[in-house]
């Protein structure tokens, strides 16, 4: 039979076209989600860029993972490579799929699963809206993604949970468009900024952190809400069948793939109900022969300080994360499973990231100001050459503050964005935030709305080496608290 070249060439051309189309869709999705997708949900994306078999330990779970575990620190101290693969408010069902994915990608020796998801009410915190973030993180070329989406869309209980949203998520049923970046954020062309262009490159931004997201806020435990339960309520506390089913699947998966599974409970302010559930989890894990490390029970030995090591009632801050990470690193080193890779030439990338990571330790200064005059004084005292201003509602007083502090509106001041109550409208010059213009950049925040909304949207604008001067015309206290709870400040 005569070999025909033409059909082969034609098939190759079709294939090339398909590849180009997929790449265009992927990068367009990356581009558009830059200003919308929670950057914390993209922190784990770098795992896809690690060579298979190079990551010794993966940590999966919700925000308790990316706020508590510092894989780069563990590498620095113990030579053990690790990566966080976690998304905000991740459903426990989602954690199972995340576990399947990381095992598929890396075949790590150890997989650490954070268990806060197992204690949540299945009809509320497990609503599928809480794992669209994970599904968007999963690669479109991964079969796990499609199985996860299919499980979500066909599981009757999940369908019920969709309609029982706890008020934070959408009331409408989820749609297939919720699980891909491009279709989720395709309308974000209205808010294109330099952030979008930066994110086009993919996870380079987050590669150094290995999925860790530092938080420098400090939480006052005196503001903890009081939660009380009756004796009867506590008697009825039990792990849900739903959680147990997922736990069993995790154990079976780990055994099937010869992965050492470790359950972890990151330290936070637990109530009596949660403590009972963790005790039940510990019993269950023991029966299954799986190790469970409850750091809530080791607060003293870890040296955790309630008044200094937490960013809010549920998460550690950077100081607290260091302590937990050192403990985790020691535990992993004691297993004897890992070779020290700190001098291994194949891990040069990790070694150079280690050098950069050290600089993160310098905390950006945070100043609260109660009046315009106060803010002007602070700004002047900081003696910076350049001001990038993110303003809340249009604020004429802000201009007076800057003028009083010696900043000329034409020189050294860049009004970057204005929050109009519902979204950020970027102004020209916003891209200057992205460049080091010689010396540290100063960001002055003035929020007319709740601080958390401001910070949630502006944390991506906060560059390294930042001193933050907070001044709000409407609610300084709230704005300051919001900045504290959400600000990420890094130095270069």
């Amino acid at each position: 039979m005569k070999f025909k070249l033409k059909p082969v060439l034609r098939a190759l051309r079709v294939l090339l076209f398909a590849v180009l189309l997929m790449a265009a869709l992927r990068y367009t999705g990356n581009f558009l989600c830059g200003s919308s997708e929670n950057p914390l949900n993209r922190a784990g994306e770098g795992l896809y860029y690690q060579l298979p078999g190079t990551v010794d330990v993966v940590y999966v779970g919700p925000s308790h993972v990316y706020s508590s575990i510092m894989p780069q620190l563990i590498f620095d101290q113990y030579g053990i490579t690790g990566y966080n693969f976690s998304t905000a408010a991740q459903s426990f069902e989602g954690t199972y799929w995340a576990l399947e994915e990381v095992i598929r990608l890396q075949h790590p020796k150890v997989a650490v699963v954070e268990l806060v998801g197992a204690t949540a009410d299945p009809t509320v915190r497990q609503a599928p809206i809480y794992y669209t973030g994970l599904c968007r993180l999963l690669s479109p070329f991964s079969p796990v993604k499609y199985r996860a989406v299919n499980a979500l869309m066909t599981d009757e209980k999940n369908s019920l949970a969709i309609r029982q949203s706890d008020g934070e998520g959408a009331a409408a049923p989820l749609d297939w468009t919720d699980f891909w970046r491009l279709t989720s954020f395709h309308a974000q062309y209205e808010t294109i900024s330099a952030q979008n262009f930066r994110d086009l490159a993919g996870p380079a931004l987050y590669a150094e952190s290995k999925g860790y997201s530092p938080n420098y806020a400090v939480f006052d435990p005196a503001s903890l809400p009081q939660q009380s339960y009756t004796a009867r309520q506590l008697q009825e506390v039990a792990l849900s069948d739903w959680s147990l089913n997922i736990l069993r699947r995790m154990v079976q998966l780990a055994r099937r793939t010869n992965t050492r599974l470790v359950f972890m409970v990151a330290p936070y302010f637990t109530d009596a109900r949660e403590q009972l559930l963790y005790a039940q989890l510990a019993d269950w894990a023991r029966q299954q022969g799986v190790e469970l490390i409850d750091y809530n029970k080791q607060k003293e030995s870890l040296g955790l300080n309630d008044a200094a090591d937490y960013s809010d009632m549920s998460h550690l801050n950077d100081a607290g994360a260091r302590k937990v990470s050192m403990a985790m690193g020691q535990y992993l080193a004691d297993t004897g499973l890992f070779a020290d890779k700190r001098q291994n030439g194949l891990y040069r990338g990790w070694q150079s990231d280690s050098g950069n990571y050290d600089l993160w330790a310098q905390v950006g200064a945070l100043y609260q100001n109660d009046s315009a005059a106060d803010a002007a004084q602070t700004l002047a005292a900081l003696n910076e050459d350049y001001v990038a201003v993110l303003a809340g509602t249009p604020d004429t007083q802000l201009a007076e503050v800057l003028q009083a502090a010696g900043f000329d509106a034409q020189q050294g001041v860049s009004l970057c964005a204005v929050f109009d109550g519902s979204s950020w409208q970027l102004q020209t010059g916003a891209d200057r935030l992205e460049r080091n213009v010689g010396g540290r950049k100063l960001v002055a925040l003035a929020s007319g709305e709740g601080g958390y909304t401001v910070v949630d949207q502006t944390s991506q604008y906060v560059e390294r080496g930042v001193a933050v001067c907070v001044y709000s015309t409407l609610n300084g206290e709230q704005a300051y608290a919001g900045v504290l709870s959400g600000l990420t400040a890094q130095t270069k």
Partner: protein
Amino acid sequence: MLFNSVQFLIFFPAVTLLYFVIPYRVRYLWLLAASYYFYMCWNPRYALLMAGSTLVTWLSGLLIDWAGRAAPEGRAQQYKKLFVAISCVLNLGVLFLFKYANFAIANLQRLLAAAGLAVQLPGFDVLLPVGISFYTFQALSYTLDVYRGEVEVEKNPLRYALFVSFFPQLVAGPIERSKNLLGQLYENHTFDLQRAKSGLLLMLWGYFEKVVIADRAAVVVSEVFDHYAAYGGVACVLAVVLFAVQVYCDFAGYSDIAVGAAQVMGFRLMQNFRQPYFARSMADFWSRWHISLSTWLGDYVFEPLVWSGWTRKLPLIGHYVTKPPVYSSLIITFLISGLWHGASWNYVLWGLFHGVTQVIGKMSKPLRRRWIKKLHIKAKSPAWMLWQQLLVFGMVCISYVFFRADTIGAALGYFGSMFGSFDPWILFDGTLYHMGLTRVQWQVLLVSIAILWLVDLKRGSTDLRGFVQKQPAVIRWAVYIGAVLIVVVFGHYGPQFDAAKFIYFQF
């Protein structure tokens, strides 16, 4: 399943791939199974209705053919007419039951109440089966074509069933004719990359029309039509114009996806739209708009009415009639067209409006010609043609108020708002951005409409798809990838939007 759904994006390639892989002899069976699966995704039980309509019309074809060959001497025509009548009564009866029964009952109740008889008649609590108006007409056309001898009877029931249920055009047309589609079901289609690319490009264009333009325009249209009392004249006019764009893009978009999908598999469906808003008369408009329906009504309603000379049989005035009843038949045809679109008096009025304007157009044609000559107007000049197009577009827009409004009262209220005030400043003072679309969304809409207009302008004289396919690979691929990105990025779908179904699914 909707064309703009992930299910269809999986269904269509899977069906097409298997179509070209399996032996030619069983391909029609595969397509039949796929078509019924496609329909049953809407409602499995209503597939039985479609199957029933298929069986009745197929049998009627066989019986008509038998009557022509073997009926007793002199009775062939009688038998043929009987079988046609049975087929029409059964099919239209089912259509009437699901679509018009409640409308008829409600009006009968009103009539009785007006006559002093307050009677509560029972209604029918039934969902309108998707596409029933389309496949009923398509199936009936086969019966009528066999009766007229225009098409050979189809002896294979399954192949005939595929003709009725062919999924690309099943739920919203084009309403295919047996003489066009039935024969194609016997063709052995081989995969042709050029043809497939052309079909996919047409599908992409259809998606652009639907998800980028129609669904976006629908936001403003819904806002204004639902709250017309709060809006002034300019807003109401704007909304009607946008509705004209919406209904065109929605319907033409669907048709383009249908035609393109069929083309990928090697089938040639009829063109359903031909740049309708470039029409220069109402008659011209109807030769360009929903061509499959207008030609169906023309062939099976209008022409028989005209040639039957039915007006000569009317009591009292019949013997005064000397000419074929063209005008009255036209009115009746358009009344039927209005009713076909929906069981509501506003649709009837819409149909009547088009019928009357067509009659006026025909009656006034000699007069208009005289005056054009007298005034030395160059009939082929761009300015005159533009004037005609704008006039026709204006009249079509007026009819759309009846089409879009829920009731006649709402339509009249809308006209009241439209002519009640003149407020052009709303176009500049930011009011537009409170009608459901942001500034950027408006910009996207207007640019998209401009692209639509340009493409339609060229489409009449140029084979645009052929032009694209002749370009070097770099340009072609840039066009294809760009088009996909435009639809995916600017499409009006997803969590932030309400994905609107195709308008014509309700018919």
